[in-house]
């Protein structure tokens, strides 16, 4: 992956910034309006999770190419408390923040190749992609 831009996430205003950067990059890669909206919605949720659970972190946006396809890669990383039980967090309706409980499963439906790495006490890195067809 080639990283195109990294956005520091500290407050809700940075969520808007991450969405705008994501929209610009996805548009530049030629995604359709529907795909673009799905990508931006996922970025918004990932950035919100950082603000909500870790307080601060980064969203990196990148481009990945293989023989036939181009894709956008979104990496959300923080040094927050980490996810204790990833399997549980992936279930619809589960939330520890008293919030919505549809974060991760929803993001997975919007994107492809969802990868979660998390160490309790050290932080979380979530990588999602979307390929252009």
């Amino acid at each position, binding site marked *: 992956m080639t990283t195109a831009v990294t956005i520091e996430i500290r407050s809700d205003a940075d969520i808007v910034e991450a969405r705008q950067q994501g929209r610009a990059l996805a548009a530049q890669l030629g995604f359709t309006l529907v795909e673009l*909206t799905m990508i931006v919605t996922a970025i918004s*949720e990932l950035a919100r999770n950082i603000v909500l659970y870790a307080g601060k972190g980064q969203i990196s946006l990148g481009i990945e190419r293989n023989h036939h396809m181009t894709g956008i890669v979104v990496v959300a990383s923080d040094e927050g408390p980490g996810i204790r039980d990833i399997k549980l967090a992936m279930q619809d309706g589960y939330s520890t923040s008293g919030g919505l409980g549809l974060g991760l499963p929803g993001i997975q*439906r919007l994107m492809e190749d969802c990868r979660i790495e998390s160490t309790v006490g050290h932080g979380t890195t979530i990588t999602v992609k979307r390929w252009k067809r």
Partner: protein
Amino acid sequence: MQVPILKQGANLIATVQTALSDADFEQLRRSLMQQVGRFRSRGVIVDVTAVDVMDSFACRTLRDIALMIALRGAETVVVGIQPEVAFSMVQLGSTLEGVVTALDLEEGLAYLDRSKRRDEGGGSLS
């Protein structure tokens, strides 16, 4: 970014013109709650035609707005959700359950008008 709120007869029309931060959404909620009381409004329209992304927070805030305004005795209609935004909302699992929606401002106003006449008609019968 403040959302302009227009008073039109018994209704308030809030037109969201740009991407809102969480703080902006909360500000919108506060303003609408105040103005419904000040103008004794019966209906509120939140026009989101220009909104290009609705994440879980935006959905929840809109749902809260509709519920709170209902407790104040007025009715809320969310209008103008774009097709691609609707698609993403459903994929995300974030819907506006319990909130009245309409295609656009015109349909939203027509709904509030019908609703108002129903109220008045019901009153005269009893």
